[in-house]
């Protein structure tokens, strides 16, 4: 280890993160949400939408909620009411079964959801087969974004990006999607600054990337966003369609999309249980904090959030190799030693989470429109990435903040990272910060500030800390934001076959 961090301080930081996370985990264990219940129905095989485009899972959950409430979960009343034709269900009279009826409903629900989970398991096995067959690219993986709004335009762009060297393709979602309380259906051809996440879009893109993986002899990973009000359902669809990585942060939606904190934490636990089972790597969003907060002053909030994300992830069953913790190269280039500070932060994250596939995000805040200076800054970002052994590099665009990347922007960006990898790919081996020097001192300072912050968060409570604007300098009260009305406390006898099966393990 290059920074010679005090293992006792690191252990203390983890203990504090666990203490801060505990009440939230308890909240998530004892509550459900409309989206968790819809995800259960999706696992049980309910698909499609009515003539107005409202998914059947929404219709069913709303009907159950109106008639008997969601405190017992949706599985028991739905499978009790289920006769031969599932389409009749929306007109059914729902009741909470008891006695032998309850046992029967439970068994039927568990069997149906089990088939969905078996499909997720098959997808995981298929991914492993394909990784063996096509080959798993060496890290750092090059992560590129496509975002046209039209899945049929995205597909050739994604295939072209893979041929140009991308290892991971992320399809950015339509900006409106995070606050929709339903998942749209079918292939979509119009979105705002991105393409809607739908099951069919997932299927189409995964198939297109399988085709190009075979051609390139390299398995191309597909990423989307399990965030917003439908986080559990989108995680489920990702598992059902063999997506490989999902953006899934514990606090991003709260802070940047004003989604209610309780809703987010309950949804998040279920999503992560699905991701764990599906072998999906999650990407967390700490990089975003630095777009509103100062990257030097707030460096410790990134580490604190990573430790919280790690704790929540482990509790939900994610292994270290599935924790794509995020951070970013966002220090103002005008300040002295900005690159050394970046190295200190990046190396600190690397050493705190040695087995995590860290996701390193390029500069955005200090990309000024001077594309030439921006190209240089991106090269320094790439250098910091290889020097500190980052695992996933989101490739910076010199035209960041001007327009969505042109074909030539992407090509130049790949030329930049290819040069840095070729010229300095193994430089991490030679990078030994001087003991007691600038880098080591700065890293220790950030870690110490992290411990202080987590200490406060553990004492005050995470919900209070979020309400006070601790993360991303945005205050989000526990009862504010969107989606709180979709959170329901479990009654005695709450039944969720998906959680039961996921917690039993394969």
């Amino acid at each position, binding site marked *: 280890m290059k920074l010679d961090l005090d293992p006792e301080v690191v252990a203390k930081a983890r203990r504090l993160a666990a203490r801060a996370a505990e009440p939230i985990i308890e909240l998530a264990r004892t509550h459900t949400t409309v989206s968790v219940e819809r995800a259960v129905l999706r696992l049980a095989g309910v698909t499609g939408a009515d003539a107005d485009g409202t998914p059947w899972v929404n219709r069913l959950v709303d009907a159950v909620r109106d008639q008997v409430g969601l405190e017992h979960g949706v599985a028991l009343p739905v499978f009790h009411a289920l006769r031969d034709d599932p389409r009749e269900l929306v007109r059914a009279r729902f009741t909470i079964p008891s006695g032998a009826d309850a046992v029967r409903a439970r068994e039927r629900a568990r069997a149906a959801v089990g088939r969905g989970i078996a499909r997720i398991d098959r997808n995981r096995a298929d991914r492993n087969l394909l990784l063996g067959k096509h080959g798993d690219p060496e890290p750092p993986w090059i992560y590129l974004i496509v975002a046209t709004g039209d899945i049929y335009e995205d597909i050739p762009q994604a295939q072209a990006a893979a041929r140009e060297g991308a290892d991971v393709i992320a399809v950015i979602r339509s*900006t409106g999607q995070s606050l929709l309380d339903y998942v749209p259906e079918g292939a979509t051809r119009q979105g705002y600054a991105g393409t809607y996440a739908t099951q069919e879009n997932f299927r189409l893109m995964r198939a297109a990337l399988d085709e190009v993986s075979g051609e390139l002899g390299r398995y191309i990973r597909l990423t989307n966003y399990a965030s917003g009000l439908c986080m559990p359902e989108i995680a489920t669809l990702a598992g059902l369609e063999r997506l490989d990585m999902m953006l899934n942060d514990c606090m991003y939606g709260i802070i940047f999309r004003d989604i209610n904190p309780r809703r987010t934490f309950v949804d998040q636990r279920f999503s992560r249980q699905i991701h764990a089972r599906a072998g999906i790597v999650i990407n967390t969003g700490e990089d975003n904090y630095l777009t509103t907060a100062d990257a030097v002053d707030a460096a410790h909030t990134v580490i604190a959030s990573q430790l919280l994300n790690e704790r929540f992830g482990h509790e939900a069953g994610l292994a270290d190799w599935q924790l794509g913790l995020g951070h970013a190269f966002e220090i103002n280039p005008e300040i002295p030693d900005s690159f050394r500070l970046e190295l200190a932060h990046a190396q600190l994250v690397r050493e705190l989470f040695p087995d995590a596939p860290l996701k390193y995000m390029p500069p955005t805040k200090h990309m000024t429109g001077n594309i030439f200076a921006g190209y240089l800054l991106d090269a320094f970002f790439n250098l910091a990435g290889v020097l500190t052994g980052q695992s996933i590099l989101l490739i910076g665009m010199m035209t960041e903040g001007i327009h969505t990347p*042109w*074909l030539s922007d992407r090509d130049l960006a790949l030329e930049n990272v290819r040069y840095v990898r070729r010229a300095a790919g193994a430089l991490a081996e030679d990078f030994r910060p001087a003991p007691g020097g600038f880098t080591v001192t700065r890293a220790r300072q950030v870690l110490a500030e992290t411990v202080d912050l987590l200490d406060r968060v553990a004492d005050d409570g995470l919900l209070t800390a979020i309400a006070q604007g601790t993360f991303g300098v945005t205050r989000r009260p526990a009862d504010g934001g969107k989606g709180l009305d979709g959170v329901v406390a479990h009654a005695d006898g709450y039944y969720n076959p998906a959680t039961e099966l996921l917690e039993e393990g394969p």
Partner: protein
Amino acid sequence: MTISTETIKQIIRPYGDTTGDAMVQVSFTLPVPHGSRAAAAALQLAGKMGLDPASVVHSKAMGPDFTFFIVYGKATHLIDYAGISVPEGREYPLLTPQQVNLAIRTVLGRELVVVGACIGTDAHTVGIDAILNVKGFAGEKGLEYYREIQVHNLGAQVEVSELVARAKACDADAVLVSQVVTQKSAHLHNTKQMAAAFAEACGLGRPLLVIGGPRFDTVTPSDLGVDRIFGKGTTPGEVASYLVHALLPTWSPS
């Protein structure tokens, strides 16, 4: 003898390394395979753009169907600098938070009420938050920090009808809206829709409408039906100073 200013010309050309060399550099992509025919096409395009002579200094295949070019050339167009009028600068003085608070206290005698939101499908609250949040932007604190300004930040993806209702309910003096997403000109469409809704609901008594976003550089406030457009890099202090200028025109900082 008087000389009309129109007769004095000041001809300028781009400057490479010698006065009058008129050298410029451009880069672009053509949707054709790399090769000599593609380079000839690039030169013809450069010629039609007014670069003569031009030379392709770099060309690179981007996949089988596209070629990227960097071209240098001599611009044949002339600019009469004397005929270029100075664009209007900021039409109001920049005030400190203390001056803004004093102005509001003195002239208005109550808090100035500001409602902010991202409207339509736009979920990018970074801009509006930078102006409104205490944290602010570029070292300046946001409007929440001003004691005499009452801020209602409605957040992301607010419906226009909801924005109008909330602005009326709290008797807003000004409405600040930020729009980042520009796909299919959503930012222009949303803004016009909002201005029309306020005009219909409030008539002439509508609050001051201020729009902010990085891509409004091709339109004027009157095109959109708003009072002011702020672009990329705007600081909270500029917005607060503008609010004083527009809403409290009788006040002067002296």
